[in-house]
């Protein structure tokens, strides 16, 4: 089958070139042969399980492929749909989180992500480059990374009073009771069949303070809290604290908060 879809050109640090997923390649082969009216019609399909659903990676490719034409209407439809896809993959900012330092910046994260993405689309339209290739590989995750970049910039340009976090060994409180953390299996909770419950678990994790949330991710990755083996990467070393107790405190406080948010008894009541 002759290919009408040019390969990606972005290189990984090891010199190999990024490639699209096979399902994206197949879909693109089909899409580039279609009249534009049919592509626009396909954008209306919202059911991701439909074989005719246009994946976001494909929309990125199609929008780049309009580089040299003047079909504003077609470009506009693709662009709008891409913006919808961006909003769909960005986390929603919860109102009650507005006061935390991170969410002051997250509040306008959507605009910032769009601005950064717009810039990349503009640059790519002027001259074919490879910066948008990531978005043809794995759109949602690349947008997650772009959001991170946008938030880093926001933090940099805002007047920052916060400094690098300090070891909070000293604040070890007797309230942080050691308890059977195994009783809350977050991995399982995130796999719940009930989408409403899942979204509550997600919101509870997102609402945690940064320090605790990071410990939770490393625990979900099954990283050891500490190790006498210097070569082993541990949570304690990564967050740069001297005592494993600090890690446990953060973990316990996080589990406590999540339990409360989900209405699971913690024994504190």
């Amino acid at each position: 089958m002759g290919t009408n879809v040019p390969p990606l050109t972005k290189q990984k640090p090891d010199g190999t070139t990024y490639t699209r997923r096979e399902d994206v390649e197949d879909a693109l082969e089909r899409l580039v042969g279609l009249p534009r009216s049919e592509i626009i019609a396909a954008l209306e399909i919202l059911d991701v399980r439909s074989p005719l659903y246009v994946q976001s990676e494909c929309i990125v490719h199609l929008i780049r492929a309009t580089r040299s034409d003047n079909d504003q209407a077609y470009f506009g439809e693709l662009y709008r749909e891409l913006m919808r896809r961006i909003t769909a993959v960005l986390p929603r900012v919860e109102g009650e989180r507005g006061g935390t330092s991170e969410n002051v910046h997250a509040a306008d994260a959507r605009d910032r992500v769009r601005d950064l993405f717009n810039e990349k689309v503009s640059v790519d339209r002027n001259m074919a480059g490879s910066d948008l290739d990531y978005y043809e590989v794995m759109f949602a995750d690349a947008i997650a990374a772009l959001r991170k970049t946008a938030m880093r910039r926001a933090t940099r340009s805002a007047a920052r009073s916060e400094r690098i976090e300090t070891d909070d060994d000293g604040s070890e409180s007797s309230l942080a009771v050691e308890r059977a953390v195994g009783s809350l299996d977050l991995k399982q909770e995130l796999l719940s069949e009930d989408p409403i419950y899942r979204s509550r678990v997600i919101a509870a994790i997102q609402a945690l303070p940064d320090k605790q949330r990071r410990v939770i991710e490393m625990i979900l990755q099954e990283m050891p809290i500490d190790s006498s083996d210097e070569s082993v990467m541990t949570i304690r070393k990564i967050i740069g604290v001297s005592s494993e107790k600090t890690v446990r405190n953060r973990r316990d406080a996080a589990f406590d908060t999540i339990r409360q948010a989900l209405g699971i008894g913690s024994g504190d009541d």
Partner: protein
Amino acid sequence: MDQAMINHKQLSDEDVLLAFAVEPEHDRATLERYLKSHPHLADDLIDLSLDMRLRRAGDGASTPVDEAWIEESWAAFQATMPTDAGAAVVDPFETASSEDLVALRRTLGVPSGVIQGFSTRLVDIATVPAWIVDAVARGVRTSVGDLRAFMTAGPRLATDLSYKSDEAPAAATAKITFEALLVQCRVKDDKRRELLEDRD
């Protein structure tokens, strides 16, 4: 410097995060590999890892579409699209108020000469870290694209300076790097390092 090191050096923070994001697996081994090679991005990599995990867990949840925002985005993008080759480049410093400029100067914590380095197009925008370009664009209420378009032209005279020299004032003939601008404006070493840091 061997090729691997050159490549490594050229990988911006933004590229590292993107490369991590598009890895086929986001297991412990992948995360550890990135944490080892980019320890300064540890917090961001862990945050990103969790963001991706939570997004996957939330797949299928319907999010209301904010059509007003979509249209606003499209209008904003259209405005940046060159409609014809000779489209005039807007001077964002002309429309910015003096309060805007003062606020921008304070946000960045730099002397006014640095801001003037932008308004006179003296600084080569390609040498300015992206987060600074972003901050300046926001400060003068324009888009990054428009600011870059404006900055591409050659240096020009400052419009609000009085010259006491006997010689007729002349615009600089060549652009200077952002670092040179900071040195010229006597920005202290540690502040300069902070401003030059590539955070993406």
